[in-house]
């Protein structure tokens, strides 16, 4: 079984999620035999091969083209299809990031391949690819198999570990591409979050606030604790719906599903759809005034009390720990 893995990069930087997908690909190839090819897309990306070198690929394809500088569903899809053909791969593996979740279905349609989205487990059983993926916002887990090949598989970020491994020096090959007239929907501008803000799906620590914060003005308490823990700020649906916080911070079924090492929920009661979005966190801490709040049923550690009083004390204590 040959596998092609797309290693996501943005603005000349490899994203960790891309290396996670590569490591997962290595494990599958080791189990079944075959060749693992890493695909890098961008413009002026020669330098990125160094980072990918020790991560388990047998071959690295460099797709270097001005039209690949910024993400384009059409140009990236055409390039991926070219690379699939060239590498004679049966599985196209990528990370289920915002980019991966957009590219995967388009690539599947172009390759006339089955699609397995946002998988949290992937293994070969008797030569067949079998995956698990959360459905209904993580409230149920579905097991699926690829009934035919090729297949496109996207992996949920922060689930698969990055494993450095010793394989023979990968071959490096530049892809010849013709992308003339391919792009109709063109990315013309990108904008980073102010202050390089960390996204809840990428952070090791997420501190989320809910209605228990009582006012949008009190969210600085959440931001300060998140900063002290070098984590990201999250929010419950009610505070997003009333406009206290941006939608990009919403954790839950109609927001983002997160799996950080540490999740702190302050002033969040724990509606079903919120629990669905954070239950796969490694350690959960809940702070809530109501000892009967459902959030305590999933939390490893709970403090019963007012988030507005507890948060500043907790932030100070974390800072003291650092020193």
């Amino acid at each position, binding site marked *: 079984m040959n596998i092609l893995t797309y290693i996501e990069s943005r603005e000349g930087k490899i994203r960790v999620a891309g290396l996670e997908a590569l490591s997962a690909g290595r494990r599958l190839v080791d189990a079944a035999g075959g060749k693992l090819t890493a695909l890098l897309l961008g413009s002026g990306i020669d330098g990125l091969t160094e980072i990918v070198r020790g991560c388990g690929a047998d071959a690295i394809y460099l797709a270097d083209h001005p039209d690949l500088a910024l993400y384009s569903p059409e140009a990236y899809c055409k390039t991926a299809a070219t690379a699939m053909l060239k590498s004679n791969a049966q599985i196209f593996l990528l990370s289920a990031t915002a980019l991966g979740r957009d590219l995967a279905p388009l690539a599947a349609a172009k390759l006339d391949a089955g699609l397995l989205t946002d998988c949290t487990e992937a293994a070969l059983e008797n030569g067949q690819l079998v995956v698990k993926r959360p459905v209904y916002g993580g409230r149920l887990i*579905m097991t699926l198999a690829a009934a035919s090949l090729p297949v496109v598989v996207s992996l949920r970020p922060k689930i698969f570990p990055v494993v450095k491994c010793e394989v023979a020096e990968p071959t490096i090959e530049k892809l010849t591409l013709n992308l003339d007239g391919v792009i109709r929907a063109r990315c013309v501008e*990108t*904008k980073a979050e102010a202050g390089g803000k960390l996204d809840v799906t990428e952070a090791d620590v997420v501190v989320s606030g809910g209605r228990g914060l009582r006012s949008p003005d009190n969210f600085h308490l959440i931001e300060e604790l998140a900063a002290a823990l070098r984590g990201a700020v999250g929010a419950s649906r009610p505070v997003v719906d009333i406009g206290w916080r941006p*939608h990009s911070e919403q954790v839950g079924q109609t927001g983002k599903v997160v799996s950080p090492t540490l999740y702190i929920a302050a002033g969040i009661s724990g509606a079903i759809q919120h629990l669905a979005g954070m239950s796969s966190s490694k350690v959960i801490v809940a702070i809530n005034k109501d000892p009967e709040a459902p959030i305590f049923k999933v939390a490893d550690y709970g403090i019963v009390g007012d988030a507005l*009083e507890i948060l500043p004390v907790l932030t100070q204590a974390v800072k003291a720990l650092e020193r």
Partner: protein
Amino acid sequence: MQFADLKRYVYINHKYFNIREVLLNIAVLVKLAPDTEAALKIDADRLKIATVDINYVLNPYDEYAVEEGLRWKEKFGGTTTVFSLGREEAVKALRNALAMGADEAVHIVSPGGLDMLGKAKALAAALQGRGFDVIFAGKQSVDDDCGAVGPMTAYYLSIPHISTVVKLDCDGSRITAWREFEGGAEKFECPLPVLITAQKGLNEPRYASLKGIMFSKKKEIAVVEAAPAQAKIEILKLNYPPVRQAGKIVGQGVEAVPKLLQLLREEAKVL
């Protein structure tokens, strides 16, 4: 009506007037999904959820898609047609969209057993040849959470797509759209026709008006049959996720903070 700047000449009082009239032909893809607050049970076959006692609603992301379709109609003129693929239940999604203000509705009757590719092909077949200038869909449905049908449908229609859009503008022939990624946002430009999938934040969906509800009840819904297709993926089983055990209440109020930190460092080893 075909897309692009339609320049029309209107003959009034012995003179020709050049009126820049756009009149867009707008499609919206909708589906029914279980209410996100519903308690889910796995069916006896262990492959799908038990549908009894579940309140089905218009998929939340499709509400943004319908709203956008209605706003474009109000801005440019034209018609908004909603499409839903599924069995009889799909009609409920269509009636919800009609009640919000859609003009026409098409039920694409599913033969069952379609995977994402099969669904997208069925939708594309129903949309093909109707000259839509823009097609809106929700970014994903809240049941299988794939987010695949929108981009795949665009592929089969040979039109570009932009997914998970949070901000959208159109001058009648070109669009600009913003989508978010981890730690940033990207702006796309694209000519019509295009398929857009809606992310929360794109707009604030309206409530159905009484007039809309009356209209939706008596409006005739067109019916087309979708072709069966061999699925390329197979569902093996459905499970509940591992149950998290409730942990310990460390204490009450600020006095519990030192104890919490100690547990996070020494027991959980996360600090």
